[in-house]
């Protein structure tokens, strides 16, 4: 090494600064106990989720309130029940442009003036919520209401946001996972299904200020708006404050629309999308899944933990630890709001030269959980322990708890969901887990997407014989399995 070195004495370097030395080490090397035996631990403390109270403003707006005095802070979330599918098919991106435009100034303050207001407070305030100390709550609510109720929709801001959005679309195309997601949606839902729609330069360019104003006036109203408030504040205080700012908001048209339910394909097909000079291939395999409020939700969650929902899951241990094809592999059920269907997906970035071998192992694990190697009693117990024991971590902080409540509103789940969580996990039977694996993980009806260097991987993929290989040339295209 060419740089200088300084020398310190390992054990003593910091001792001068230290206080209250511990008792001396009396044990021999390793101590007098058997380190191979895991410690016996006591029972976990029972999990208590703070009570959630639901109230209504005079105009019908629902508010879920979690009073939680563990620290003097408040989290406010705006839950909007406005489906992106309300956008006209040639104006994909309209709803997200409306969201962006709500932060671009109001009839009272320009965006720069708002920015000054936030700096005075020490916290930013989005139209969709904020997190702040108690004494900033009133002013933050006022600024939130101002943005939600009186946006300016400045033309210059719209032009800038549209141009930035077009740039972001171009940049996303550089990302292999984004490309895989696009091809996956096209093949699973059909290229023209609302779930496959993507913003393009053309759809963004076609949106003008009138479209923004009209979408906002139609949908940004009760009953498409709900609020969630968590923190050191009483329900009565919350209702009084919200009533003051939002009580006069008049109702609009229903914001949600449920697109037709896609169905999983009749047979498994491999769709290959070329990304030259990729040292890894992104693999994404999946099918349609259940609604978020499916009675089998808890059984599905435990099954998924065994398959690919944890570090020690079958899929990750196989692809990463046993074969070293990847840094990590996972599976998940990706839920939408009730009553829409979810999808199941299994994915990893794998070393290009082992794309074929990785695909074979993916399909082996999928076939395994489906029935060739069903979830064992031990695996189920492990998954259940994990799911229940980790709850104190998931609800550790006030912001985690407040966000958890907000997700109940946005997913449209009952507000007592968390109180029943432990009981619901414990009620899952082995038989139920075997059934949901057979039902929802069907190896013969999977969309398989691979984004990688075609010149390096195509021949190998075809030779696996896992399924027919179709080369997808464009992101607008739904490939046909007849190729």
């Amino acid at each position, binding site marked *: *090494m060419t*740089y*200088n*070195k*300084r*020398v*310190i004495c390992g*054990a*003593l370097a*910091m001792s001068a600064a*230290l206080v209250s030395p*511990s008792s001396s*080490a009396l*044990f021999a*090397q*390793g101590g007098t*106990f058997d*380190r191979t035996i895991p*410690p016996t*631990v006591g029972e*976990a*403390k029972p999990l208590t989720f703070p009570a959630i109270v639901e109230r209504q403003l005079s105009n019908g707006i629902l508010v879920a309130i979690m009073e939680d005095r563990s*620290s*003097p*802070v408040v989290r406010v979330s705006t839950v909007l029940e406005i489906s992106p599918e309300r956008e006209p098919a040639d104006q994909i991106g309209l709803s997200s442009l409306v969201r962006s435009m709500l932060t671009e100034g109001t009839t009272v303050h320009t965006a*720069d003036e708002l920015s000054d207001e936030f*700096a*005075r*407070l*020490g*916290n930013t305030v989005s139209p969709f919520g904020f997190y702040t*100390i*108690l004494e900033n709550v009133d002013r933050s609510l006022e600024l939130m209401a101002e943005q939600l109720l009186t946006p300016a929709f400045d033309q210059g801001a719209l032009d*800038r946001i549209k141009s*930035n959005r077009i*740039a972001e679309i171009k940049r996303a195309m*550089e*990302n*292999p996972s984004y490309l895989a997601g696009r091809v996956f949606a096209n093949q699973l839902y059909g290229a023209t299904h609302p779930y496959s729609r993507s913003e393009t330069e053309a759809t963004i360019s076609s949106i003008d200020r009138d479209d923004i104003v009209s979408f906002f006036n139609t949908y940004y109203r009760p009953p498409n708006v709900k609020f969630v408030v968590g923190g050191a504040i009483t329900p009565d205080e919350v209702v009084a404050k919200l009533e003051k700012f939002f009580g006069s908001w008049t109702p609009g048209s229903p914001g949600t629309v449920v697109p037709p339910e896609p169905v999983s394909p009749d047979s498994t097909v491999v769709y290959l999308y070329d*990304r*030259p000079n*990729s*040292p*890894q291939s992104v693999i994404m395999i999946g099918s349609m899944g259940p609604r978020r409020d499916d009675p089998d939700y808890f059984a599905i969650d435990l099954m998924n933990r065994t398959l690919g929902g944890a*570090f020690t899951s079958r899929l990750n*241990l196989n692809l*990463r630890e046993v074969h*070293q094809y990847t*840094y990590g592999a996972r599976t998940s059920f990706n839920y939408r709001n009730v009553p829409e269907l979810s999808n199941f997906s299994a994915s990893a*970035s794998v070393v290009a*030269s082992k794309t*074929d*071998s990785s695909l074979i192992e993916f399909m082996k694990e999928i076939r395994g959980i489906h029935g060739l190697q069903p979830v064992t009693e031990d695996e189920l117990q492990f998954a259940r*322990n*994990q799911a229940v024991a980790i*709850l104190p*971590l998931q609800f*550790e*902080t006030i912001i985690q708890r407040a966000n958890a409540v907000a997700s109940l509103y946005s997913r449209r789940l009952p507000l007592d969901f968390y109180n029943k969580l432990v009981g619901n996990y414990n009620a899952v039977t082995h038989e139920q887990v075997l059934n949901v694996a057979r039902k929802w993980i069907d190896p013969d009806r999977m969309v398989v997407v691979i984004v990688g260097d075609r010149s390096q991987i195509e021949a*190998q993929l075809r030779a696996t014989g896992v399924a027919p290989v179709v080369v997808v040339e464009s992101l607008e295209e739904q490939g046909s399995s007849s190729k």
Partner: protein
Amino acid sequence: MIYKKMSARKTLFARALLAASLAGMVAPEAASAQGKFNIPKLPVERYQLKNGLTVLLSRDTSASVVAVDVWYHVGSKNEEVGRTGFAHLFEHVMFQGSEHIPYGQHFKIIENAGGNLNGTTNYDKTNYYETVPSNQLETALWLESDRMGFLLNGLDQTKLDAQRDVVKNERRQRIDNQPYGSMWEIITLNTFPEGSPYAWPVIGSMEDLSAATLDDVKNFFRKYYVPGNATLAIVGDFDADATRALVEKYFGPIAGSDAEIERPVIQPYTMTAERRLVLEDDRSQLPQFVITWPAVGVKHADNAALSAFGRVLTQDRTSRLTKLLTYERQLTTQVWAGLQGLEDAGMFMIYAVPRPGASLTEIERLIDSTLTSFDANPVTAEEVSRFQNYMKVQMVLGLDGAMNKAELLLDGQVFHGDPLHYMKSIQQSLDITPQDVMAAAKKYLTTGRVVLSMVPAGQLDQISKPDQSYQNVTPTPEVQTPAPAGNN
């Protein structure tokens, strides 16, 4: 990291932004952005075992969880030339079992107990951590003590080889398969002087990863993974007396070492001339642009003032550089400026994400004219109080989890010898004057710097100031040997 957290999808610069925002803690009395402000003080008990292990205990019963976090004061800067990436590879090996914990059990035990776990390696330190339900504290101490005291008897060539390949895939996923993925390592290589241990990337090179041997692992462990080079923090819901006894039981018997630890001394460094670089990527569609100056580390007196200058440039939409580039001239979708401080040195960076068609030459010219304009229009008191207001409130809001608090205390202890160093650090930022900020900017943002244009392959006409001489630093792609078709 030993594995990628499933929710974590942060870009390099998202991480940089995160690191730049100050963590804080919950105060019993609320803070005020504008009134008088008392920096909240975390309770902490610090002591040292006979073998040299430093212990930090901080009790917080607001949730039934406890964080166990062990920092080893060793990172990629301690690596030998030819063994880059080794500290991080070693981190992976630490998860492969130890003398009393069989391979694969560490993850299984923590997951079964309802815990989260991971490890991180950076230039200066490596840490291993788990947050567990509070009844599982002893389980975490058992696991952490076994790999601190008894790693080598559980080690073999197979485990090393397996993790070597996992790490190579981590490199491919984070760097080689990402657009302009090698940006960061190009910047450090060219900003720090030749031979500086901050020049090479934490993840290392493929060649050096291939070269690492079992003997390297053993030597590294014996040298750096001694109790005297480690600090253990326990934060959360625990009984202090019982916990002190458990720490003694599990960590007390581990042998200490009197061997000397050699640490690199990284001297203050400035560049004398500008270095212009170009990175091409055939998977990219749009250019990116970054300027980097050598600067100070987190221990340096100028750290706070130079960090503040980054906020003045790009904190929000009214900050000078953001206002000019993103809002007035609309040449960028995003611009970020700030100090990336390591333990002994740092880099001040300005990173611009251009709009399609925007000229990098024009962006560079406007960055430079903005920097020059401070001579006539110096940093104002309003600009400084702006970031200080945010700092106060975000500090109270920001640190509310046991692991966050453990990290803050450890950072203070390991790099500054004081677990409550954050209080001094924040006070320093709150005491800063506009003159301090100006002086720091003048001192470090000089002509010696690295200017990196990143463009889609072949589009060299898009680089900034293409008429000036530059070095093309585009890396050669990895050559993989494909398996014969159908042979798996």
